[in-house]
């Protein structure tokens, strides 16, 4: 589905058009569920989060019009931020880490590899310009919503080092994308 079609559906949803909302759900729920599932790594919680995300979309659809983001990026941003907020807020529930790692491959998926050829793929070229481990840290911070502390533990570096790595990597990434 094209961007302008999604935009139309969001605009109609902002006018509380249920049919448009249903269609928007049909076209975007699988993507947004993928976002919630990857960040929360728990099916039950991801379903709950997805439900809350679409209720937010229903009530905030009018704000999409004033956003400069593409409509799908706007939807993904809502889902990502909601899932990350839940991740930070939740009590430590037992999650089978082995299962989670098996399901969630840290490498870009086939879709991303395909997209990497086009204009949107420039970010992968820019990430590749970073030292591999730093590029990976940016990627997994974004995709999994990991905190500085979690990243520092995983890469076995002090917290301040991780903070500096990531901030510098983001600056270099921005410069590369603006080149």
């Amino acid at each position, binding site marked *: 589905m094209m961007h302008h079609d999604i935009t139309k559906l969001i605009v109609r949803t902002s006018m509380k058009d249920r049919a448009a909302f249903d269609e928007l759900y049909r076209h975007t729920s699988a993507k947004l569920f993928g976002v919630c599932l990857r960040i929360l790594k*728990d099916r039950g919680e991801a379903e709950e989060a997805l439900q809350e995300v679409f209720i937010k979309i229903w009530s905030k659809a009018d704000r999409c019009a004033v956003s400069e983001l593409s409509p799908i990026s706007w939807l993904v941003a809502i889902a990502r931020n909601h899932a990350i907020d839940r991740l930070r807020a939740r009590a430590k529930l037992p999650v089978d880490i082995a299962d989670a790692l098996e399901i969630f491959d840290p490498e870009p998926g086939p879709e991303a590899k395909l997209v990497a050829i086009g204009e949107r793929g420039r970010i992968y070229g820019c990430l590749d310009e970073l030292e591999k481990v730093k590029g990976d840290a940016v990627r997994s911070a974004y995709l999994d919503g990991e905190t500085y502390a979690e990243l520092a533990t995983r890469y076995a570096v002090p917290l301040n080092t991780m903070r500096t790595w990531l901030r510098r990597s983001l600056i270099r990434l921005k410069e590369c994308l603006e080149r």
Partner: protein
Amino acid sequence: MTLEDKNDPMKGSDNTLAAEYVVGVLSMADRRKVAARMRRDDVFVKLVETWEAKLSPLADSYLEVEPPATVKLAIDRILYDGNHSATMQPESLWQRLTFWRGLTSVAFALLIAVIAVPLATHRPPEIGIQLMALLAPKGSDVSYLAYYDPRTRQLSLSHLSGERNAGLDFELWAIEGQEMPISLGVIPPGNRVRVRLDSKIGSHLSKGGILAISTEPAGGSPTGQATGPVVAAGDLHQI
């Protein structure tokens, strides 16, 4: 301050904060501060959006996964079931709640299958009876999901929709049987908030009943009973 901090080119700038928020590395406290700032600072919102746009191609790596049909059904119940109450005449808090009890139980039966079952399977059975309530909109767009854990006496509230008007607060009430509503306090702003209940109210809640939210002057009801309209309500269910 460490050497690394001094050399850090992005330390402390709004640009850094926006980037860190978007990339997702901030703590809960910092994320809340950023969210609060975004409500009042449009320049900062633009910075965040710039970063969202720059990093958005990374989101292509999220694989599509079809959610179960129960999710959409639950969304529809929450969004559309509360509409009936908009045309009701003003009545006492208690009368309105009795009427809504019937409406929300249907919505809740479905929701419980979606949320409570997976949640319950994460917890050992011996820790007491946990309760959930869907506080569905009542003539408003305000809705919350409530979860009560008797072990910690904590009531967790997930904010689903609807904002409070400036200068007003949401106050949470528990109602059991024919008794007068008991205030559980003003609900702090936030997507997910926790309220710790004293043991007397905690054991009271364990008997079931209704949770309701009314709109009150900032700081809560001046009288100890609800003075403003009820904007959301729902039955407590054992899970």
